[in-house]
Every structure is written in structure tokens, then in C-alpha cells.
């Protein structure tokens, strides 16, 4: 700085070299644009998963032929995928938001039991099925509020807070149901949710709907974008004036709500509410989400990836059963396949420079 010497020469607007770099970047982009576009589209980013799923389907057809390829079987797979799928969509948001929820399975159980005891005991026959629906959703969201409050405002580690909820919710479910399976005698309910629409089970429709809404929510709304910032860089989010605590609370309410929906679906599927519903959903859901390419550290993830993750696991189970594989071999195969799928996904992603 020194002397009050010569002012800097009027530098003519220097063509910044960034122009070069980025221009170069742009150019490269343009050259392979169509390809790149595709690659950066959700499908592209999940190409590895697509491949994995396709391979699975081929195996299915090869080993089980029409028994696999039949429409009925496809619907079976989808119906099976739909319940855990809805939970996984909710889980995706929590994980992108930098958290995790181990209590989803327990919440599903509690919600299912609460809703069905309403039907079977409190009001007996004359329960309108809407009451059950509302009960399930309310219970699920309620549990989410508790989780969210403990984590956002009580500053508890999500893992431990939701682990506590896991224990508490299942216990409560057992107490309420007196450990008896609650059979639903509200036929309208079962018929409505168990039934088909345009030849496709309503459960599958619900899953599709939830996924679509989830996708829009994550990619097209301020809530979704804020979720990414809260998970990716909470400090920046706060500096940007986002109420991180409240947003976190919302995230756990969201997954709780999803569990409520899942509870309704499972009641419809099994015609029962039970404290044993949703066992180990937490692991299945998280696995689907992570296989789908969402980072457990938060800040990155896709709904499409999660849907693929769910479908892969569902198809896997189905193929195993069709081939009459015993549980143990299934477990081993499952482990190996998870590894292969993820490695494949990584290699492909790396090749496309995405991730």
C-alpha cells in the first residue's frame, strides 16, 4: 500500500479468465449437451439403479418366466413395495435434511393400532372409516412432532431421540392393543383402500401419488430447496434467514405423516392393526433411501432414487420367493446384491461426473 503513489492504471475491463474456464465448461456441456442433460436428469443420475433393476427383472424372467412377468405378479411387487415406499419417501426428506428417523416402524404400528382400536372398541361397528384415516394420520404426525421437538429444540441427536421413540411407540402400541391383533370390521375401509382403481390397486396409486407429491415438494417448492440447505449447510441456511429449528420440526412431522399413511395402507392390506406391524421398517426404509443415492450426511438426495431403491428390494424378495430360495440364502444373496448395486451405481455416476 505504502506511498500515496500512482493510482492504479485505468485497467481496461479485463476479459476475466473465468470466462475461459466456465466458457470451456459451457462448451463441453453444449458438445455433449443432450447426453449430459439426460445424465443430469433424475433418471440419468440413477442410471446405475435403473441398470440394477433391469438386471433383476431379466433374472426374474429368466428364472421364473411368466410367473414373474405376469401382470398379477407385477402388481404383487408394487403392492408389496407401496407401504414401505411411502415411509421411504418421508425418510428421504428427513435424511436430506440432515437427520434420521429410526422410529418409523414403531410409529406405523402405533398408528395402525390406534386407528383400529378406535374402530374395534371405542365406537364399534358404526365407525366411519374416515375417523380411522384421520386417527392414523393424527397419531403419525403427533409422534413426528415429539421427535422433531426433541431434536430441533431439545438439541438431541436424531438417532437417539428417534431410538427412544421406537421403544416408546411400540410399547404404547402393545399396551393399547393389549398385544392382540385388531381385526378391522369396517368393511368400507378395507374395500376402499384394498380395492382397485382402473385395474390397479389403490395402495399402488397412493404410493405413486405420494412419490409424485414428494418429488414436487423436494424439487419445485421452497420447502424442498430449504430442506437441502438445512441438511447441506445449516449455518448458511440460518444466515439466509431460514428458521432451521422449525424446518427440522416440519421434516419430522412430514415423515410422521407418511407413517400415518403407511399405517392406513397396512391396515387395508392385512385388514388388521397390530403392534407388530412395521417391524424393522427403519432399516428397510433407510436402506432404500441410501441405495437411492441420498447422502446420510444430508444435503443431497433424490426421490426418484428412493423409488428405485424400494422397487429393487421389493423385486428382489419376489424373485427369491418365485425361485423358492430358502431364507438364509436369500439373506446372503441380498447382502451381495446390495453391494453390487451400490458399486455399480457409483461407477456409473463417476463416469458421468455427476454425484
Amino acid at each position, binding site marked *: 500500500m505504502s506511498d500515496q503513489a500512482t493510482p492504479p492504471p485505468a485497467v481496461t475491463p479485463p476479459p476475466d479468465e473465468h470466462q475461459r474456464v466456465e466458457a470451456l465448461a459451457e462448451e463441453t456441456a453444449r458438445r455433449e449437451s443432450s447426453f449430459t442433460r439426460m445424465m443430469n436428469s433424475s433418471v440419468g443420475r440413477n442410471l446405475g439403479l435403473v441398470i440394477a433393476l433391469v438386471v433383476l427383472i431379466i433374472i426374474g424372467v429368466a428364472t421364473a418366466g411368466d*410367473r414373474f412377468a405376469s401382470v398379477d405378479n407385477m402388481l404383487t411387487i408394487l403392492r408389496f413395495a407401496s407401504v414401505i415406499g411411502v415411509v421411504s419417501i418421508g425418510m428421504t426428506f428427513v435424511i436430506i435434511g440432515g437427520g434420521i428417523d429410526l422410529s418409523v416402524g414403531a410409529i406405523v404400528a402405533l398408528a395402525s393400532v390406534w386407528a383400529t382400536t378406535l374402530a374395534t372398541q371405542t365406537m364399534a361397528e358404526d365407525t366411519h372409516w374416515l375417523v380411522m384415516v384421520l386417527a392414523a394420520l393424527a397419531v403419525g404426525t403427533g409422534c413426528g412432532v415429539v421427535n422433531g421437538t426433541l431434536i430441533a429444540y431439545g438439541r438431541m441427536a436424531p438417532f437417539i431421540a428417534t431410538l427412544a421413540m421406537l421403544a416408546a411407540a411400540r410399547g404404547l402400541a402393545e399396551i393399547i392393543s393389549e*398385544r392382540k*391383533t385388531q381385526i378391522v370390521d369396517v368393511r368400507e375401509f378395507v374395500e376402499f383402500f*384394498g380395492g382397485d382403481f382402473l385395474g390397479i390397486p389403490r395402495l399402488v396409486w397412493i404410493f405413486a401419488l405420494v412419490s409424485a407429491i414428494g418429488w414436487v415438494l423436494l424439487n419445485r417448492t421452497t420447502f424442498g430447496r430449504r430442506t437441502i440447505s438445512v441438511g447441506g449447510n445449516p449455518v448458511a441456511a440460518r444466515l439466509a434467514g431460514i428458521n432451521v429449528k422449525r424446518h427440522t420440526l416440519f421434516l419430522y412431522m412430514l415423515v410422521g405423516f407418511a407413517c400415518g399413511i403407511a399405517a392406513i395402507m397396512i391396515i387395508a392390506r*392385512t385388514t388388521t392393526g*397390530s403392534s*407388530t406391524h412395521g417391524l424393522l421398517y427403519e432399516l428397510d426404509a433407510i436402506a432404500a433411501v441410501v441405495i437411492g443415492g441420498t447422502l446420510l450426511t444430508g444435503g443431497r438426495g433424490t426421490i426418484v432414487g428412493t423409488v428405485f431403491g424400494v422397487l429393487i428390494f421389493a423385486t428382489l424378495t419376489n424373485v427369491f420367493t418365485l425361485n423358492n430360495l*430358502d431364507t438364509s440364502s436369500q439373506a446372503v444373496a441380498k447382502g451381495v446384491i446390495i453391494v453390487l448395486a451400490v458399486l455399480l451405481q457409483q461407477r456409473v455416476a463417476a463416469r458421468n461426473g455427476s454425484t
Partner: protein
Amino acid sequence: TSNEPEEESNGGAAADSTEAPAGGNDEPGETVTIGFSGPAADHGWLAAINSSAQEAAESYEDIDFRAAEGTNDASLQISQIETFINEGVDAIVLLPTDGAALTDVAIQAMQAGIPVVNVDREFSSPFAARTTILGDNYGMGVSAGTYACQLIEDNSIADPVIAEIAGIDALPLTQDRSRGFADALSDCDQEVDNRVSAEFTVESGEAEASNLLQAAPQIDIIWNHDDDQGVGVKAAFENAGRDEFFFIGGAGSCNAMQWIEDGEMEATVLYPPTQAADGIKLARLIAQGKSMSDLVQVEVPRRTVLYAPVVTADNLEEFVDQCFES
């Protein structure tokens, strides 16, 4: 299984869970503390086990009942038994998560002078229990298999498709049931064509069954190990609109009995959870030094194996009041 040439009594115990035994055994005696430990009540049948034990204990004011947290972790259950030993309870009723794993601690209890009543899953040593009440898992499979053979014969089904929906595969009891089923089937030159295993839960029952139905487009006979998961299995049948097969159940829940009555189920093989109640009663007798007055012996017998009868529409009313809510 025990190689002791001890006297066996069949069925009796199952009965006295419902109708109170004759004689003075139900008159209050000295108050005895009975510790009870069973697997996690993570499905209906086990829940019924716990509750029936609870009820049996409450029906006597001379029983001080201690129930440990149900668990599927052998290590934890061992520490619970150790706790009972430390406490010096008068008797222990134990439904082990795994018979072999709990044997040593049971022996410790016996050596500490605490009689152990072994329920359902048998210890690996005869010295581990004062008396043993077994549901006969192998026999259960045999009954189911035999009944299946009979169905095939009566309905003269040509090369029938037989499916099995087992319970938790990792459990020895599931293995026994499947083995019994297979052995019985082989007597009529049949075998299981499709087999899946659920987890005793309604949900897993539904999931596995619906996949099974896809695996086998046409089925003649399905044996489902457990009526509790059977609720889910039936839901799967309805979802898929399939009912071309004979549906045989297991355990004998009230739901199953209802289905049989409504003709929605062919039969179910009894596997009464009341054995826990029997365990409590016997433990009380042993602790109070009484005998089973409705038996000839002066002492409580060493081994009781519950018979696993097949309940059908014909003999339903015999058994319907033994059913358990799940």
C-alpha cells in the same frame, strides 16, 4: 429330548388349564414366589403365553408372580434367570428363547434349589428342569402332514401342489414343525412344492403369502404354521382372490376357529399357549410340595407332552373354548 424313562401324561395338562382340577390343589397354601420368563411377546401366540401365565398366577392369591421382560436375546434372558436366582424365588417357569442356550443357567437354578418348569422349548439337559411341558412342534408338523395326506386321498387329488408358510426360520421350533410336516407327507409320497417363511407377524404373513401365491399359480394344500400370521395370510388370499386350496392352520387361535366354523379354513393344528398357565400351576404345586391330585402319581410328573390334535369343523366344539385371542 429327554432319555429319562419317566412317566408321561398326554393332554391332561392342556385340559386343566380350563377346567379346574379336582381335589384340594386350588385351596390356598403357603405363598410362593414364581418367576416367569418368556420370549418377547412379539406376536399373538407368545402374547397369549404371557397373558395366560399372568391370568393363571392371578387366579391364586398364594402366588407372588414375577414376570421378566420378554426378550429374544438369550443373553438377556439368562441374566433375568440369574436375577430370579439372586432373589431366591421359590420356582421358575421358563419358556426359553433357545432351549440349549438357557440350559446352563437353568441347571444353576436347580442346583440353587429352585425348581424350574421348562415350557415349550426343551432344554438340552434333563437335569435343567424339574418338569417339562412341551408343545410338540414335530408332532404338530406330523399332524398337519398326516391330515394333508388324508385330504389328498379323500379328494383323490392327482399330483397335488403343497405349499408351506413357516414361521421364523431361524428358530428350532420352526425347523421341527417343517421336519414333521415333510416326514408325514413322505408317508403318502408327497413333498412340499413351495415354502416361504414369515415372522409370526400378520404383516409378514400377508407379504410372504402374496408372493407365494404368485410363485404357485395353482395350489391344492397350504399349511400355515401359525394362525396369528394366518390373519395376514388370509388377507393375502382375499387380495389375490384365491381359494382353490385347502387351508390348514396352526396353533388354534380364536380367529382360526371362527374361520373353520365359517368354512373359510379347512383345519388347524392345536398348539395351546395355555401350557404357560399349566407351567405356573405345576410350579405352584411343586413349590408347595403338592402333587397333581388328578393323577395317580404322588409327585408331579417329569414330563408332559401336549398332544397336537387337528381341529376341523367336525370336532370344533370340543376345542373352541381352548382357543386364544391373538
